[in-house]
C-alpha cells in the first residue's frame, strides 16, 4: 500500500502535467477530447510549435497513431485456373449397397416419396470455359410433378395443341401479364419459335431467369415441335455443372438398389457423353461420384454394387421405409 504522501505526490504531478497537453492546441475545450495517443497527429494538423512536449512522448504514441504498425501489405493471390481437386487415395469409398444401407438408416421414418437420393459428380474442370448442361430421362423418374407452361401465339391451333398436351398455362400476352404479376403455376416453360420475338420483347428475363425458366435455344426450350419437347420435358431432369460439380436427384428413398443403380448408370453414361463432347482445349474429366440423400451424409462411391457385409443382401434394402 502506498503511503498517503506518495499518493498525494502522484496526484499533484498529474494535476501539474494536465495543463501541458491542452496547451498544445491552444484551446482547453477541444483538447480535452483528444486521446493521449493521438496527440502528435492532432498537433501536427494544428501546425503549432509543439516541439517541447511531443519529443518526450513520441516513442509511446508511434504505434497507435496509425503509422507503421497497421500498414497492410497487399498480398497477391495466386489465381487458379482449375477448380481444386483432392487426392482421393485417402478417401474411404463405398459400394452402392453399403451407401444405401447407411442412408436408409439415416433417413428412417421419413416419407420415402419426399426424401431423394442425390448424386454429386465432381469434375476436373477449368473455371472458365464451357459447362456441362443437359437433360436426362432416367429409367425410373424421380420427380412426377412436372407442370409445363407454353408460350405460343394466342388463338392459334398451337394453343389448342399445347392444352391437349397437358400444359397448365398457355398463351402469349396474357401469359406474360400473369407472369409479371407473379402468377407462375408451371415449373417448366417452353416457347414456340413464332412467339420467341414477342418473348424477347416482353423483358421477362428478370423474373424467369433466376428461376431457370427462361426459354432459350440453348436449353432446347424454344421449339417448333411442341409435342416432342413436352414429351421430352415430362420425366426428364435437368442438370448442370456449377463450380465444377454436377448435382442431380437420382432416386426416391423407396427405390430398390437395382432401380437406383439403373438410374445412376443411365445418368453417368449421358454425362460421359457430354464430357466427351467438350472441346479438347478445355479440361473436363470425371473426378469423384458422391451419393447422398436429403438428410444424410455424402458417400463417395467406388463403382461397385454388392454390399461388403455378407449378412446383408441387396434384397434386404428393398423393405418399405
Amino acid at each position, binding site marked *: 500500500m502506498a503511503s498517503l504522501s506518495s499518493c498525494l505526490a502522484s496526484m499533484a504531478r498529474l494535476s501539474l502535467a494536465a495543463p501541458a497537453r491542452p496547451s498544445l492546441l491552444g484551446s482547453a475545450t477541444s483538447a480535452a477530447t*483528444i486521446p493521449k495517443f*493521438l496527440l502528435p497527429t492532432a498537433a501536427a494538423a494544428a501546425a503549432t510549435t509543439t516541439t517541447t512536449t511531443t519529443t518526450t512522448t513520441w516513442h509511446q504514441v508511434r504505434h497507435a497513431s496509425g503509422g507503421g504498425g*497497421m500498414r497492410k501489405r497487399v498480398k497477391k493471390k495466386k489465381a487458379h485456373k482449375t477448380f481444386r481437386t483432392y487426392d482421393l487415395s485417402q478417401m*474411404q469409398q463405398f459400394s452402392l449397397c453399403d451407401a444405401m*444401407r447407411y442412408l436408409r*438408416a439415416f433417413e*428412417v421414418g421419413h416419407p420415402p416419396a419426399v426424401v431423394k437420393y442425390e448424386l454429386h459428380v465432381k469434375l476436373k474442370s477449368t473455371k472458365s470455359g464451357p459447362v456441362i448442361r443437359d437433360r436426362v430421362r432416367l429409367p425410373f423418374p424421380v420427380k412426377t410433378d412436372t407442370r409445363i407452361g407454353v408460350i405460343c401465339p394466342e388463338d392459334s391451333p398451337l394453343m389448342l395443341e399445347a392444352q391437349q398436351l397437358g400444359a397448365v398455362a398457355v398463351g402469349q400476352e396474357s401469359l406474360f401479364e400473369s407472369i409479371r404479376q407473379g402468377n407462375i403455376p408451371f415449373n417448366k416453360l417452353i416457347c414456340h419459335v413464332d412467339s420467341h420475338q414477342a418473348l424477347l420483347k416482353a423483358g421477362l428475363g428478370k423474373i424467369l431467369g433466376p428461376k431457370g425458366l427462361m426459354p432459350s435455344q440453348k436449353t432446347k426450350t424454344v421449339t417448333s415441335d411442341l409435342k416432342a419437347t413436352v414429351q421430352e420435358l415430362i420425366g426428364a431432369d435437368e442438370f448442370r455443372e456449377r463450380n465444377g460439380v454436377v448435382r442431380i436427384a437420382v432416386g426416391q428413398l423407396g427405390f430398390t438398389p437395382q432401380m437406383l443403380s439403373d438410374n445412376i448408370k443411365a445418368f453417368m453414361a449421358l454425362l460421359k457423353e457430354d464430357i466427351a463432347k467438350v472441346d479438347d482445349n478445355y479440361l473436363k474429366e470425371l473426378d469423384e461420384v458422391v451419393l447422398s440423400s436429403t438428410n444424410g*451424409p455424402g458417400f463417395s462411391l467406388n463403382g461397385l454394387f454388392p454390399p461388403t457385409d455378407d449378412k446383408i443382401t441387396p434384397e434386404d434394402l428393398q423393405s418399405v*421405409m
Partner: protein
Amino acid sequence: MVGVIRRLNKLTSKLVRLRIGPGAAILPNTVSRIHLEFAHKINGGHMGPRKFWRTALPRLKYWNPAIPMIVNRVREQEKPATMTLYFREPGAPVKADVPQPSSSFDGLSKAPPPAEGERIVTINMSNRRSEAILQEFLEKTGAVPVQPTPQDELELREAEEREAQGAIDRERVKREIDAAKREKRMIAQALSEAAAIKSAL
C-alpha cells in the same frame, strides 16, 4: 467440394455413432415389422418417442435393414404415442407382399392390423424417456445388442478426441478474432475522433 480429410473425419464420426450406441441391436427373425405413432411436437408427452426415433431407430435400421420401420407422425398432440411390434408366429411363412403403407408426416400411415400368421405387441411411449422406451423394446423383442469392435472403439475415441481438440481450437480462434475486431474498432473510433478534431480546428 470440401477437402477429403475434413469430409472423411465428419463422415467416420457420424457412421461410428450409427453403428454403436443405444439401439444398436440385432432383432430376432420373428420380428416382421415395427410401427411407431407419435405427434409432430413434443408437448403432451411426445418428446420421448421423438427422441427414440431420432437416436435409437437409425441404429436399429442399420443393423436390421430388412425390417420395415414405419413412423407415422400425427398433428393431434393429445393422441397417445404408441409403438406396435409385429411378430411372425413360429412356422408362418415369410411373406413379402404384406400391404404396408410407408412412413408419413401427415398421419396417413395408421398401424395396420396384423396379417395372417402375425401377432402384435404394443408399447406405450407417452410421457416416457427414450431410454425407457428402448429398454422395454429390447425386452419385448429379445433383441441382441451389438458389441462394438475394437475398430469401432478406436474410431469413436478418435472422433471424440478430434471434437475435444476442435472445441479448444474454436475458443482460441474466437479469442483471436475478437481481439482483432476490438483493435479494429478502437482504431476506427480513434480515427473518427481525429477527423472530428481536425474539422473542429
